[in-house]
């Protein structure tokens, strides 16, 4: 009966346990393989698939390899259920690398999901696809990422940012520029969440690409408080590194401001640690800093491991490493000011890592008087979890070492709680001994007194060591400390059997060592303490403590009046106890006796000698070979002493004399009064992993070299507008009139300085050609009328608004539109042809060429000689007062071969076989009268699409070397194609063959034509086309007009250009997409599809550069 009840209750409790676990996945974890998983995976029910996947995950969690289910799992990626999908993704990520071939099966589904309207599905697909990490799909993944980087959903963009490091991890060199560009795009995102993730990507992909940061610096600072906490941590670091690289360290900061003091005579002679006590009147700071340590710390932050090693090999050169050029002042530097402003509220962050990162910035960059504001937030971090407490303490310790005064008033924060972990306690003790001052030392010592009685004896021993350190630092307290320590030694030595409690021994040893440390400072005034220690020798049983005291006997054997008189008794005692000592102590006894013997007075000498001989005999037959060795060594060394009868005997042979000297030197040496602080400690950046583990972790990078980041002035100026615009956008409230003023002035600045740079640096100059110039490159101008010069443009979805029934007229150029193309609505852009002007560069300056000025411009005509040649028009002009004779231009290479006129032909023949760049020479100009100009056509084959070609210019019998620079835009030729062909070709060149860049475009704003009521879209098209065609030899394939609801928004405008690379006939497609408002600066995305990656990328850069360049042709 009762039994039955018993069993019922048992089953009941079992049942209740089951009930509690019902609905959880407990049974799956406990017995994942109790059913056959494979058929479940193929089941048509989602719930069964789900269960099977859960079982697989359970096996993964338990460490089993279940990759053999891969094919079946991959099939389920198509599932509609979000849970199944999620589980499949989890599984895929675990095994995709192992089963690359099967993983490829899933790619199609990802591609499909990437187009899903649900952002969560897109994000998951992107995360998984990038996470699969197969080289084969890297181009696809990159394409997906760059697409998602422009996704409307913030979450998807964030995932795109997170996917970038995954792609970067595959180490595909050819993708690096594209990845970095996407990082740039995402850093520029307006959503803080995306910026945070982009900061993470930046840190792991291109931490030194400061150009990306410079573009957005102000915006990043402003967005920093809104970024998610994890992003903040990294973004703070990025901004700090950027500012250091760009502007250098701050002169007023703690890192640098103490350099000056060092040389101004604040240096005290007797120690390296010194307190800089400035007068109260003198700016009111009475702070003490460890100057040398600050120097070392600031140097460590900057220098890499190589420099550290080279420095540590010659430690004496602790000199100021910072050039004044490499520093900046906070008063004048806006960037530094902003950085400090935007990081200081983050000291209130809820996330300890953010607080520490922000504190690190303030520590390095903030002016000396502001550094103290990091103290309280840092101390508050000590109230967080025990794990972060430890890390924070490690960092505070470094701060306190360099600037103890910062933390000195807050010593109470470092009092130890019983719940602290041992490491935390140890660090707190170190802190307390570092920051103790004359005013706080009494409270601190009373705390220490409590700690000594703590049950944790290891901690108690550490406390005693800390007392020693305090006494060493503060000269006022040693007597009180010594009394306490001596009492402790007596108490400990009487505290029963020390062997039973392991920790006690440590406490005792530490007490003796601390006493030693204190005595070391000033042994003369402490001889009574030493004597007390000697007296207690008998009661101290711990070998290490005994050894230390015995060592002290040797060192202080001639100190004061009393000690030398004790020596014979002491050594007798040591000889008596020698047999029972531990080997550590035995060694010390031998050494000490030798030292005592050396410094012995005449009357004790015989006695001591006898003791020594006795001990050497004992030592020779000791069990430990260490002691036997030591004994023999001493015996040999002391043989001269042992042989003599007097302690100081000069009447010995010279050879023995040397031996005496050696002995004197080995044993008679006194301690150095003070051991210098090790200045070779290595410090790492605050908050870094390396600072905790105390070695440079892989991937640790010190701060960049101050002012190592310089960028071209040109870029800076053209970027100025953009940057300020970003600022203005954020500020919003700024008055419009003010903005207008600023715009005007800076535009002027930009143009003027760009102009001057061109003339000085590059020797390039824009010349506006005459309107009558017959060689307009793309569109040949028929002389009939302006309205007849019309370029037909086709649009896929053009609107009626822009329909123009003008039939195509005089298009004889290579880019002529094929008239039998299927008809679309046509847009006509007005007299563009007349406005397309090739850019002309100068080959020879009249200043250098004694009046001869040579310019050249690239022509769009195709060379008659070979497809590899480019036609260049050279314009010679005589600006001097005298005629110039025999002007000719020749290839430098061919000059070397021969002088005859035929050699040019030979050269040409060679060229078609060799790779030597050749020149189809021009007709020689026999005489050029003053003010006369002549045009000649040359055809050039460039060896490389970036390298200039060296030519020699002859005139008046002189030879002048000149350089002909290739223009990338003319190393392609127009490729006439329909929009269908274009799209088909484009679709065949995805992924790695597609690269894009962003740039801005503002020609249309300056264009005065905007005002005469012309359609804005058309004029933008016109401007862009004009710009492109003026700088490169392309064929305009089509124009897509935006189907926008406002006429202001030009977003969606797309121009397509077709071309082929001259040398290889490989098609190269250019698509320019416009974003932004008609009346403002537009953002262009230039995309190139081409198999020839290197050429394509270079051309892309070229296009992006010239699109930004202010145009001089708009008049």
């Amino acid at each position, binding site marked *: 009966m009762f039994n039955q009840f018993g069993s019922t209750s048992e089953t009941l409790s079992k049942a209740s346990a089951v009930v509690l*676990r019902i609905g959880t*996945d407990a049974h799956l974890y406990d017995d994942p393989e109790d059913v056959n998983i494979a058929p479940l995976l193929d089941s048509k029910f989602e719930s069964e698939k789900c269960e099977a996947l859960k079982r697989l995950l359970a096996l993964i969690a338990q*460490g089993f390899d279940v990759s053999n289910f891969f094919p079946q799992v991959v099939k389920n990626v198509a599932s509609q259920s979000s849970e199944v999908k999620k589980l499949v993704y989890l599984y895929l990520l675990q095994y995709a690398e192992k089963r690359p071939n099967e993983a490829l099966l899933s790619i199609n589904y990802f591609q499909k999901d990437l187009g899903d309207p649900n952002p969560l599905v897109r994000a998951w697909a992107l995360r998984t696809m990038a996470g699969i990490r197969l080289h084969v799909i890297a181009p696809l993944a990159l394409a997906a990422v760059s697409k998602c980087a422009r996704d409307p959903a913030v979450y998807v963009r964030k995932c795109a940012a*997170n996917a970038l490091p995954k792609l970067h991890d595959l180490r595909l060199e050819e993708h690096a520029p594209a990845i970095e560009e996407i990082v740039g795009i995402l850093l520029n995102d307006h959503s803080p969440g995306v910026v945070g993730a982009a900061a993470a990507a930046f840190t792991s992909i291109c931490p030194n690409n400061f150009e990306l940061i410079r573009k957005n610096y102000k915006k990043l600072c402003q967005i920093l408080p809104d970024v998610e906490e994890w992003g903040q941590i990294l973004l703070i670091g990025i901004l700090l590194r950027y500012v250091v690289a760009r502007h250098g360290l701050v002169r007023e900061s703690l890192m640098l401001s103490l350099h000056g003091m060092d040389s101004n005579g604040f240096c005290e002679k007797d120690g390296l640690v010194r307190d800089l006590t400035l007068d109260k009147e003198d700016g009111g700071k009475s702070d003490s800093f460890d100057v040398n340590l600050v120097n070392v710390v600031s140097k460590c932050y900057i220098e890499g491991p190589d420099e550290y090693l080279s420095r540590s090999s010659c430690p004496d050169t602790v000199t100021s490493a910072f050039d004044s050029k490499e520093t900046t002042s906070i008063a004048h530097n806006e960037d530094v000011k902003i950085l400090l402003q935007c990081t200081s509220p983050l000291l209130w962050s809820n996330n300890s890592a953010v607080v520490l990162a922000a504190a690190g910035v303030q520590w390095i960059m903030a002016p000396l008087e502001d550094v103290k504001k990091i103290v309280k937030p840092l101390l*508050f971090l000590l109230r967080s979890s025990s794990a*972060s407490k430890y890390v924070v303490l490690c960092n505070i310790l470094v701060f306190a070492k360099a600037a103890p005064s910062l933390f000195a008033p807050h010593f109470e924060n470092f009092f130890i709680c019983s719940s602290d972990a041992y490491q935390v306690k140890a660090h707190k003790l170190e802190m307390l001994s570092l920051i103790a001052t004359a005013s706080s030392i009494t409270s601190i010592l009373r705390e220490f007194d*409590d700690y000594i009685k703590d049950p944790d004896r290891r901690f108690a021993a550490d406390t005693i060591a800390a007392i020693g350190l305090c006494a060493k630092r503060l000269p006022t307290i040693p007597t009180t400390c010594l009394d306490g320590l001596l009492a402790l030694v007596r108490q400990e030595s009487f505290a*029963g059997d020390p062997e039973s409690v392991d920790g006690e021994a440590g406490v005792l040893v530490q007490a003796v060592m601390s006493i030693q440390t204190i005595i070391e400072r000033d042994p003369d005034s402490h001889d009574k303490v030493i004597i007390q220690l000697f007296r207690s020798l008998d009661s101290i049983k711990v070998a290490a403590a005994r050894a230390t005291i015995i060592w002290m006997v040797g060192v202080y054997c001639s100190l004061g009046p009393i000690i030398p008189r004790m020596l014979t008794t002491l050594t007798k005692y040591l000889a008596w106890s020698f047999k029972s000592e531990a080997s550590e102590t035995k060694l010390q006894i031998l050494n000490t006796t030798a030292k005592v013997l050396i410094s012995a007075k005449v009357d004790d000498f015989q006695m001591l000698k006898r003791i020594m001989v006795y001990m050497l005999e004992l030592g020779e037959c000791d069990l430990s070979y260490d002691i036997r060795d030591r004994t023999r060594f001493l015996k040999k060394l002391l043989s001269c002493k042992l042989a003599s009868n007097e302690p100081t005997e000069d009447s010995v042979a010279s050879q023995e004399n040397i031996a005496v000297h050696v002995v004197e030197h080995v044993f008679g040496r006194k301690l150095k009064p003070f051991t210098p602080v090790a200045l070779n400690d290595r410090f790492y950046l605050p908050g870094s992993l390396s600072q905790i583990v105390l070695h440079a972790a892989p991937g*640790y990078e010190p701060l960049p070299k101050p002012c190592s980041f310089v960028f071209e002035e040109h870029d800076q100026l053209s970027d100025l507008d953009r940057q300020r615009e970003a600022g203005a956008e954020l500020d919003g409230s700024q008055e419009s009139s003010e903005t207008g003023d600023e715009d005007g002035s800076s535009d002027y600045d930009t143009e003027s300085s760009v102009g001057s740079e061109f003339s000085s640096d590059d020797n390039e100059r824009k010349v506006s050609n005459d309107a009558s110039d017959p060689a307009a490159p793309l569109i040949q101008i028929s002389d009939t009328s302006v309205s007849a010069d019309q370029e037909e443009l086709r649009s896929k979805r053009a609107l009626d608004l822009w329909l123009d029934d003008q039939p195509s007229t005089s298009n004889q150029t290579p880019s002529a539109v094929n008239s039998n193309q299927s008809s679309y609505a046509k847009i006509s852009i007005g007299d563009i042809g007349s406005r397309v002007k090739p850019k002309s560069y100068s080959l020879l300056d009249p200043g250098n060429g004694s009046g001869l000025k040579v310019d050249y411009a690239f022509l769009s005509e195709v060379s008659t000689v070979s497809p590899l040649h480019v036609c260049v028009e050279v314009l010679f002009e005589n600006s001097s007062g005298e005629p110039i004779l025999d002007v000719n231009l020749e290839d430098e290479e061919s000059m070397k071969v021969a002088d005859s006129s035929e050699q040019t032909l030979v050269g040409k023949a060679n060229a078609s076989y060799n790779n030597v760049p050749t020149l189809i020479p021009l007709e020689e100009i026999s005489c050029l009268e003053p003010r006369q100009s002549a045009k000649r056509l040359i055809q050039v084959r460039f060896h490389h699409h970036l390298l200039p070609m060296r030519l020699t210019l002859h005139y008046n019998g002189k030879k002048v070397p000149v350089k002909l620079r290739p223009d990338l835009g003319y190393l392609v030729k127009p490729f006439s194609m329909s929009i269908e062909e274009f799209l088909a070709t484009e679709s065949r060149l995805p992924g790695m063959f597609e690269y894009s860049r962003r740039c801005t475009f503002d020609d249309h704003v300056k264009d005065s034509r905007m005002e005469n009521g012309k359609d804005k879209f058309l004029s933008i098209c016109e401007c862009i086309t004009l710009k492109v065609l003026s700088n490169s030899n392309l064929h305009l394939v089509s124009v897509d007009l935006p189907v926008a609801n406002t006429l202001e928004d030009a977003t969606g405008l797309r121009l397509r250009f077709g071309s082929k690379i001259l040398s290889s006939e490989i098609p190269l497609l250019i698509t320019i997409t416009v974003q932004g408002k008609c009346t403002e600066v537009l953002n262009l995305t230039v995309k190139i599809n081409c198999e020839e990656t290197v050429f394509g990328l270079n051309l892309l850069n070229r296009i992006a550069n010239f699109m930004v360049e202010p145009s001089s042709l708009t008049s």
Partner: protein
Amino acid sequence: MLQCIFLLSDSGEVMLEKQLTGHRVDRSICAWFWDQSLSQGDSFKSLPVIASPTHYLFQIVRDGITFLACSQVEMPPLMAIEFLCRVADVLSDYLGGVNEDLIKDNFIIVYELLDEMIDNGFPLTTEPSILREMIAPPNLVSKMLSVVTGNASNVSDTLPSGAGSCVPWRPTDPKYSSNEVYVDLVEEMDAIVNRDGELVKCEIYGEVQMNSQLTGFPDLTLSFANPSILEDMRFHPCVRFRPWESHQVLSFVPPDGEFKLMSYRVKKLKNTPVYVKPQITSDLGTCRVSVLVGIRSDPGKAIESITLSFQLPHCVSSADLSSNHGTVTILSNKTCTWTIGRIPKDKTPCLSGTLALETGLERLHVFPTFKLGFKIMGIALSGLRIEKLDLQTLPPRLYKGFRAQTRAGEFDVRL
């Protein structure tokens, strides 16, 4: 960045592994870790950053479960630690605590959570309110549903609206029929009384905890009557820095539900509500102990659940302790706990008894530290007072509530 996260049970079993990047971490690292922590004991377990031969390990221990993360490259260690803490918080929030059984029973949820919280070693979504929308926490209803219908996905099909907004901590449009907002001041008193009975350190660590159930997009302002007493503070990301800097007012758009708005510290308090007077005399191998606990300064509210716990020193072989009020328990690991509860009006609670020392020891030379625990409802001992809580747009039927409580934090009384 983090490469892998392991969850270890208190016996060292790897319950879960989640690889985060392509560089897989073998679980043998856990075996190494566990061997080390067995051989080196407590000091290894309390070391949050460990340089193992192959990886850098970050560990936190929560209720016996070790959360272990690995990295091979430089990264901010606090970031890893804070993240692990966040994972532990979220898990215990979801599962109602963390222990071996709970994690094993809900391993799918743990996997799904980890997958949302971290992507490629970098934290992705850590905001609890958004995670709750993405992955439904297990509750009785969903459990029953899954038993009955056989399938109930806990993974949401749609992206939570908050994930993309500029206030990522708040779902875009929560709706409540009655709008309620509660503010709690929860304070902990940290104090150290040294062996001379002197109050060495006494400070308050406080948190402003809120529970907001408000419709729409509320903008709140909370101001204190005496903000100047606050020594340090840290804020939830929702708090705007500007208004605090200029006139010490908390202005914020609150998350939905419970959250910690800010934490603060008030230093240099002069008095503790409770006193502890321990006395110990030792002679000839036995010690007499007597501890008195009483009210020093009456806070005006009842002081509840007073406890006093201490660790007997190693050299004590046996203890005989009794009290005139409350109960005394001595555990096998020599932890002694005296549960007092409320202090009676008529007498002063007193713990007295003898300790027998190990043979050979005449007197005690190490002394325990007493940890005091207490709780006072309805008062914030720091003296911080909330002045007012304003909403920019008042919703209909708004209910505001304020509470306060103080308990002992790290309250050490040394003997």
